[in-house]
């Protein structure tokens, strides 16, 4: 159980049976008055934000959250299937839940799946992934008339800007937090 004095940005608490993460927090205490804990939080399942001012006596349950390493198997319609490599247990997340990570997911990729109790609610990918460029305009060496970057498509269908020397078939490293090109990868 957390008490109001434990509240801080980044803390995860349970309210009405759902997990929330505190996104903003301010301690206030008017002179001779009671301590107030102004808390802004985001529902980790629905993404809804709300703000509440708590008092010293308020208490909060710790949500049952656990990250498990899983492997991406395949996607079918709206379902993205993952497997726990030690227990072989399989679960799936919806396209909504996967969100922008869809641009970087390839078969057998290892990800962290966040469980709330037995319910998978979110995934996080490694910070860097290596993907093959499947479509790019060829680079003409010595061509200085062009721009600094050009658009390419990688194996997941994701499009991004890269330096002009990146060719079709090259493997490139992408930062999954920003979606940006990092470097070419040799194999």
């Amino acid at each position, binding site marked *: 159980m957390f008490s109001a004095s434990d509240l801080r940005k980044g803390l995860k608490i349970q309210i009405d049976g759902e997990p929330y993460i505190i996104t903003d927090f301010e301690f206030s205490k*008017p002179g001779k*008055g*009671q301590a107030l804990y102004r808390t802004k939080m985001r529902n980790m399942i629905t993404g809804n934000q709300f703000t509440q*001012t708590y008092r*010293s006596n308020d208490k909060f349950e710790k949500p049952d959250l656990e990250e498990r390493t899983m492997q991406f198997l395949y996607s079918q319609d709206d379902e993205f299937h993952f497997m726990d490599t030690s227990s072989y247990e399989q679960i799936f997340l919806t396209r909504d839940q996967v969100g922008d990570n869809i641009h970087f997911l390839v078969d057998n990729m290892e990800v962290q799946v966040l469980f709330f109790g037995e319910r998978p609610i979110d995934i996080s990918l490694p910070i860097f992934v290596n993907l093959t460029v499947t479509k790019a305009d060829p680079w003409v060496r010595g061509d200085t008339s062009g721009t600094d970057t050009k658009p390419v498509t990688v194996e997941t269908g994701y499009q991004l800007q890269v330096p002009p020397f990146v060719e079709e078939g090259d493997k490139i490293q992408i930062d999954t937090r920003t979606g940006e090109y990092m470097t070419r990868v040799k194999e």
Partner: protein
Amino acid sequence: MDRLSLLAFRSSFLGAVRSFFLGSGYLEVDTPLRLPVLIPEAEILPFASEDWWLQTSPELCMKRLLACGASQLFQICHCFRKGEQGRFHQPEFSMLEWYHVHWNYQHLMEEVEALLSELLQACAHFPAVQDANSLVLHNGKISFAGPFQRITVEEAFQRYAGIPVARALEEDRFDEILVTEIEPHLGWDSPLFLVDYPAELASLARRRPDNPQVAERFELYIGGIEIANGFSELIDPKEQKHRFVREREMIEQQGRKAGPMPEGFLEDLALLEETAGIALGLDRLLMLFLGCSSLGDVQAIQLENFTK
């Protein structure tokens, strides 16, 4: 800001504060930080020191000194309050507290204006001080020239929260409404005195003779931040004891043990004449003068980052 610059600013700020009071006929006192009895206050948590306590304010000691016949006293000291940590709170902080016999809270408000005006001139070279008479805060300019704005607590509740104070008290939402809906608006074009608090919220202040529902208490706000708390002091030992009994009951209700009743203090109270007193958060004021965004930034040592 680098540490050495901070220390230099802080030193000249403290010197200017001292100068003002010594030049206005006040005696400087330094009273014990560790005491066997504290003023009972339900909403302030003291740190225990073996079976005594660290002071949460120098009020008890300073009033007992007034009973010895002193008429003007000031003190700059550290106060300790458990569980108070945030952008404008540190568990150990610096307080300026002063008392003037035969004055009431109106006299004190005028003196606050004079103090701040002199401080700004002495600190004219500080980062957030402009033209030796204004502070710059969040791209706005707060002018300290001329008398500060004054509004009553009732006016503030009506104007910014649209509800009467009595209703906020009934619904136990006074503090919450004050902090979320009212304070952010106070003290921008000029500093502001919020005056005449409900009597039940001013446990050491005397009631207004012409309106006993409110107490002669004010708070100074600058840029939405509470800086000082001043009163016409309550000197009736019977009523003060009655308020202490209430506070001790509330402390017990919270599951804590109430300390002893300050009997010695109550005896001394009977010897006092009309007096006004005020506590001002020096760290907060310095924070504004330096344009820093949190209280911890202006303390000489930041305990949060202290490597043992």
